[in-house]
């Protein structure tokens, strides 16, 4: 299984690049995941999305879909695609250390 390393911590990723254990997530790992996924340096707007995803998943037991993120995080759909151009549906959850969302919207 692939492994991601950030500042001396190693975590396991699944074959699609999602963290296996979301409780191991740290902000440093988010930066490493963003680097790996070609997102680059995380801005304050990225962090707004990541913080929302982490909190929402902790409350609901599953990662939020994109419509939920755009409705509740304060970051609109258009901007989500600018922040995560290669697919915000997967990447927001991935960088947040969460599994792949089940929501289709």
């Amino acid at each position, binding site marked *: 299984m692939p492994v991601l390393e950030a500042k001396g911590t190693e975590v396991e990723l699944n074959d699609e690049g999602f963290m296996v254990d979301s409780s191991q997530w740290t902000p440093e790992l988010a930066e490493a995941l963003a680097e790996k996924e070609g997102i680059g340096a995380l801005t304050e707007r990225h962090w707004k999305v990541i913080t929302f995803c982490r909190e929402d998943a902790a409350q609901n037991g599953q990662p939020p879909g994109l419509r939920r993120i755009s409705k509740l995080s304060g970051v609109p759909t*258009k901007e989500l*695609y600018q922040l995560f151009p290669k*697919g915000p549906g*997967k990447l927001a959850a991935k960088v947040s250390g969460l599994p792949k969302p089940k929501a289709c919207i």
Partner: protein
Amino acid sequence: MSTQITEPRAEENVAPTPARTPIEHVSVIVSKGTLDMAYPGLILANAARMSGIDATLFFTFWGLDVITKKSIDHLHVATVGNPSMHIPTMLGGLPGMESVASEVMKKQMEKLDIPPVREMIEILYDSGAKLYACQMAMDMFKRTREDLVPQVEDVISAMDFFDKSEGAQVLFI
């Protein structure tokens, strides 16, 4: 004269494993204007965009209703000639049945956090999906550009659609 048949060598017999290439572009042809046929195309195109896949949508024939200002908020489920409704066709034809069935479906969609069609079209537009109307269908139903919602990029021919679908997986719905 005898013909000798030679067995192909083992390594020639093995078909090469095809390389799995990720989908990079989907083109969805939306040809129906009922609620139950509009959603699948819109949801698939949106799922593609969420995964970072380019999406092109081509609205043709009754699919034009999905992007027409007057009809976008009033799409219905077909209660007649729809075996999946599980009600007798005679009942499905009664006045008001279609409205009731459509309302039930809309409520169920909202419960699943699936937005109304108008919002789906806005989400698709914001996601960078490209929406096109079919010129021939527009002529046939006597509609003009002004009849369509502003998220529609252009009115194009079928040949234009294929030009814009280069390298895409094409889905007909």
